[in-house]
């Protein structure tokens, strides 16, 4: 069992209820229930609505994942769950569910980090992660550059956004252009028909004295909104496709330049890109181009594995089991600001014997 553990993963950090099942680095099931449509009319994720939806979807999504994978819950080697970071109330539903499920089945529980899971999911696509791996995580909730010498134990922050997440900028610009929510896919689509060089939007934190690996998208967001508003005020038509293309270019230019530079500076020859924005076609293309020039191997999972899902949590959980990392306690709590440096939340060592006693009592 140690090499190819069978693990079920639960993800509820935002608006997707995800339950995935993996065997080692092989994906067996990736069941998702999303409340994104409910949030659309609010132009963003409403935490209470997301939490209510997680509760409703939890058991059906677990059952669907087991059915898709064709495995029995009794055969699982462990249950993994996103312990953080994310929306507190949403995380709590998943953590509570995972604890009860693991407990009732007599399986070890692994509370894992959402960001480390976004990186680890690539094992399901491209096999074991090279060590170290540089990872660029970009979504509506995060924009981070992370160095991962060991995804189960050692993840180091290189840089992060100092204001908005990249995906948030896409949502905001889509809102300004009346394109609906979420903004990423529609801007990507329109940008393909626009000229990325039409408008020179600013590249945040790109000066020689700026932090090398941090990001800032707030200024860009404001600049684009102002540019659009000026056009409208002048009674001119807004060239939506050119705005989309030029805005998107500004975002992906900074993201890829900094990521590739971090690889070079650290002597890392693999770059992994994950998170919802990794589905962006221009980000993929530009990263490919720049990585090739720099001699860096690029690894980007398929879009469905880039957005939040349970498979990524299962992938990291399986790695925890395979490497013999300690399981979490039944007291495990949801931590909305779990530091990226904690790939998982191990239990207190002095608690172990207590569980062993009750385990004999309960399951033998």
């Amino acid at each position, binding site marked *: 069992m140690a090499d190819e553990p069978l693990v079920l993963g639960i993800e509820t*950090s*935002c608006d997707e209820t995800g339950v995935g099942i993996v065997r080692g680095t092989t994906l067996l099931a990736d069941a998702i229930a999303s409340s994104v449509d409910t949030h659309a009319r*609010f*132009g*963003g*994720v*409403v*935490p*209470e*609505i997301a*939490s*209510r939806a*997680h*509760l*409703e979807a*939890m*058991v059906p999504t*677990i*059952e669907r994942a087991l059915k898709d994978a064709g495995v029995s*819950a009794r055969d699982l080697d462990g249950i993994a769950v996103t312990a953080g*970071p*994310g*929306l*507190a*109330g949403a995380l*709590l*539903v998943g*953590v*509570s*569910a*995972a*604890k*009860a*499920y693991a*407990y*009732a089945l*007599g399986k070890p529980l692994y509370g894992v980090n959402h*960001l480390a899971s976004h990186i680890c999911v690539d094992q399901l696509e491209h096999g074991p992660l090279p060590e170290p791996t540089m990872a660029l995580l970009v979504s*509506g*909730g*995060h924009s*981070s550059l992370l160095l991962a010498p060991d995804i189960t134990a050692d993840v180091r*922050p290189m840089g*992060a956004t*100092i204001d*908005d*997440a990249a995906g948030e900028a896409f949502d905001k610009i889509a809102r300004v252009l009346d394109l609906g929510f979420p903004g990423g896919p529609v801007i990507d689509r329109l940008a393909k028909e626009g000229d990325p060089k039409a408008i020179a939007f600013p590249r945040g934190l790109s000066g020689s004295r700026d932090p090398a690996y941090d990001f800032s998208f707030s200024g860009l967001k404001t600049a684009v909104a102002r540019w659009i508003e000026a056009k409208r005020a002048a009674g001119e038509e807004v060239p939506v496709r050119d705005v989309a293309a030029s805005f998107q270019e500004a975002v992906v230019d900074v993201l890829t330049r900094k990521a590739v530079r971090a690889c070079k500076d650290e002597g890392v020859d693999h770059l992994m890109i994950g998170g919802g924005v990794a589905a962006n076609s221009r980000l993929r293309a530009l990263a490919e181009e720049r990585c090739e020039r720099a001699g860096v191997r690029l690894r980007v999972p398929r879009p469905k594995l880039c957005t939040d899902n349970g498979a990524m949590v299962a992938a990291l959980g399986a790695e925890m089991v395979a490497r013999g990392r300690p399981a979490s306690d*039944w*007291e*495990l*709590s*949801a931590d909305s*600001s779990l*530091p*990226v*440096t904690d790939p998982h939340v191990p239990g207190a060592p002095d608690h172990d014997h207590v569980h062993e*006693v*009750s385990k004999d*009592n*309960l399951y033998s």
Partner: protein
Amino acid sequence: MDTATPAVTAALHDGTSVVAASSRVDARRHGELLLPAVDRVLAEAGVKIDAVTGVVVGVGPGPYTGLRVGLVTAATFASALGVPVHGVCTLDGLAYEAGLDEPFVVATDARRKEVYWARYENARTRATDAAVDRPAEIAEQVAGLPAVGAGALLYPETFPDARGPEHVSAAALAALAAEKLEAGGEFLPPQPLYLRRPDAQVPKNYKVVTPK
């Protein structure tokens, strides 16, 4: 189990009586405390987990975040064991525990200066649907009645005859459910009684993670 009030409470009932119970009052730590409470009652009773034939959960009304802990725990626990999960109104559990044989009111703290409440004919018979209101607005409907629960104790102007129990106990909930099962009574679906619409405000910068 029940997490609709500040009490995190679990109990094991064998069809005849409560064999183990655990309650802790900590409104902020439902998520951390519930499963250890379940573990404690099973271990204390010395019962193997496969012996559990059903799960009873308080469906509220109660403050949402804590309430969901009990419901999702009960649902996944029951799903893993392949046993049914029965919903019981949390106020009914309190009423049962109060044991009064006359008309009375159960009121719990709904925060935001409101109470979750219902009127009862006696300990086993609820007379009104659970509702959420400001105490002053229901003063006439509860006038002259004894009242139990933290919501009653919090607002003595509306509930001059307030008394305990303050919070629900899973022991009472389980005993009530055992009676119902025996009598073939009906349960509620294991879904939360929120009684309020979600606050639809999009927070700024949700889920932003800034390591450093």
